[in-house]
C-alpha cells in the first residue's frame, strides 16, 4: 500500500532532482515501482560503492518506464534496469521498429535503436525476463483443465480481469491486440496498481490477471501462469541501461555493469523478490546478502 503513496511522491522527487542533480561524484539510479529493478539497483549500488569512489543515489517508484528513459537522456539519472519490450513503446517511428515476439530480435532492436537515438548502452540480458503473463487461480485451472490461454475462452465471459495501468491501452501487446490474437474478451477489465491486482485476486474480486513472470505472488497465491499458445506476449528481457558518455568518462562502471550480464536467472530473481514482497525484508539487505553469497563483495 505504501508503494502507491511513494509513486506519487516520486513524481515530485523527480522534479527536485532536475534542480539539484548533477553531482559529479554521485551515480543516480532510477527504478520503477516493482521489486526486480529495485533489487538490481541495490546490487549495482553495492558493487559500485565497493569498487569505486562513487556515491550511489537510488530514486525508486518512478511510475513509468518512459519517464526513466527521459531522465537518463537528460542526465538526471544514470543507470536503470529496463526490459527489451520497451522498444515497442512509441519511442521510435513505426517504420524503424519491427514488432516481434522473438527474444533475440527484440533485444537486438532495443540495443540498436536506443544506441542510435538516445546514445544509450543497452547491455545484454541479466538472465531473466519479467514479461506479461496471463495467470488464474490454480484451483480453477485444475478444475476446468486449463493449460493454455486459449483454454480460457469458454469461461472468459464470466471472468473478471485485472491488469496494470497501461496494459488495457498498449497497442502491440495490449488488451486490444490480445482480443484480436485470441479472439475473446473478459466480462470486465480494469486497470490498477500491480499490488492491488494481486490483492484483487486474494479478496476474490478478480479471476484473471496479467501477472509479471517473476512475481513471487504467483507462488504465494497459488496462481497458474497459462501457456501463451499463440505466442502473443513479447519478451521483456531485463537489461541494465546507461548512457555511453558515462562509460567513456569512467570505464570502471562499464566493467561492473558488464559483469552482471547473464548472472541472474528467473528462479533466482523470483526468490529474491519473494524475500522482499512476501517476507517483507529490506531491499538493500536482500541485495547485500545476494552479493555476499555470490562472493562479489566481502
Amino acid at each position, binding site marked *: 500500500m505504501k508503494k502507491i503513496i511513494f509513486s506519487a511522491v516520486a513524481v515530485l522527487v523527480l522534479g527536485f532532482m532536475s534542480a539539484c542533480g548533477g553531482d559529479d561524484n554521485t551515480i543516480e539510479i532510477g527504478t520503477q515501482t516493482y521489486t526486480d529493478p529495485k533489487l538490481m539497483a541495490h546490487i549495482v549500488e553495492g558493487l559500485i560503492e565497493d569498487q569505486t569512489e562513487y556515491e550511489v543515489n537510488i530514486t525508486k517508484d518512478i511510475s*513509468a518506464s518512459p519517464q526513466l528513459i527521459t531522465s537518463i537522456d537528460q542526465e538526471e539519472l544514470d543507470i536503470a534496469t529496463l526490459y527489451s519490450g520497451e522498444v515497442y513503446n512509441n519511442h521510435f517511428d513505426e517504420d524503424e521498429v519491427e514488432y516481434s515476439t522473438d527474444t533475440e530480435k527484440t533485444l537486438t532492436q532495443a540495443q540498436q535503436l536506443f544506441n542510435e537515438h538516445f546514445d544509450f548502452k543497452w547491455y545484454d540480458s541479466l538472465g531473466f525476463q519479467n514479461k506479461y503473463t496471463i495467470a488464474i487461480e490454480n484451483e480453477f485451472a485444475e478444475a476446468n483443465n486449463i493449460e493454455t490461454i486459449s483454454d480460457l475462452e469458454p469461461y472468459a465471459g464470466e471472468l473478471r480481469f*485485472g491488469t496494470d495501468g497501461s496494459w488495457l491501452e*498498449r*497497442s502491440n501487446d495490449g488488451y486490444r491486440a490480445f482480443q484480436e490474437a485470441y479472439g475473446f474478451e473478459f466480462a470486465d477489465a480494469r*486497470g490498477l496498481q500491480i499490488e492491488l491486482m494481486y490483492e484483487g485476486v486474494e479478496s476474490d474480486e478478480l479471476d484473471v490477471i496479467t501477472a509479471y513472470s517473476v512475481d513471487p505472488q504467483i507462488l504465494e497465491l497459488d496462481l497458474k501462469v497459462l501457456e501463451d499458445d499463440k505466442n502473443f506476449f513479447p519478451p521483456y528481457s531485463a537489461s541494465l541501461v546507461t548512457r555511453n558518455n558515462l562509460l567513456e568518462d569512467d570505464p570502471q562502471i562499464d566493467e561492473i555493469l558488464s559483469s552482471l550480464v547473464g548472472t541472474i536467472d528467473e528462479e533466482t530473481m523470483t526468490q529474491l523478490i519473494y524475500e522482499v514482497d512476501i517476507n517483507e525484508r529490506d531491499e538493500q539487505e536482500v541485495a547485500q546478502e545476494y552479493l555476499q553469497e555470490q562472493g562479489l563483495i566481502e
Partner: protein
Amino acid sequence: MEVLMDYIEFWQERYPSILEYTWQHLFVSLVSVILGAVLAIPLGIYLTRIKSKAIKNITFNVTNIFQTIPTIALLALMIPLLGIGMKPAIVALFLYSLLPLLRNTFAGIQSVDPEVIESAKGIGYSPIQRLMQIEIPLAFPYIMSGLRITTVYIISWATIAAVIGAGGLGGMVIAGLGFNDKFLIFTGTIMAVIMALIADFLMGILEKKVAYK
C-alpha cells in the same frame, strides 16, 4: 498538421473507449457529489439548529480531517475495507466532498439576517415553514456555490481513482504514461478539464437562476 491528422485518427479508432472512460469518470464524480450533498446539506442545516458547540466542532473537525488526507492515501485506506474498483473510489471522493458542502450550507444558513428570521417567526411561520420558505431559499446561493466548487474538485480528484481500478479518465493518463502514448495522456487530461469546465458552467447557470436579486 500531421500530428492533428494522427490525433483525429486516434479519436476515430478509440472513441468508444474514450467515451467509456469519460462515462466512468462522470459516474464516479456525480455519485460521490450527490451522496455528499444528500448527507452534508441536511447535516449542515442540522448543525445550525443545535446549540452544542462540541457537536459542531467534532463534525467540522472530522470532515476537515478527511479533507487533509492525501487523495492517494485515502484511496489506499479504502481498499482493505471496500476492495478495489469504483466503490472505494466513490466512498473516498464522497468523504472529500463533505467539508466544502457542509461548510457552505452552514455558512449559508448562518448568513440569513436574524431580523428576517425574527420577523418570519413573529408573523407566524412554523419552524419548518421558516426553514423551507425563508432560510433555505436565502442560503441557496451559498449551497449552490459549495456544490459547484465541490463538483469541480471531485472531477479533478477522480482522475487519481484510476490507480485503484475505478477507471475513469485517470486510467487513460496512467496508461499513456505507462507506454509513452502522448495522445492518451493528452486526451485523458483534456477530457477531465472539459468535464470540469462544463460542470462549472452548467452549475453557474443554475446558480444564477435560483439567486434572487
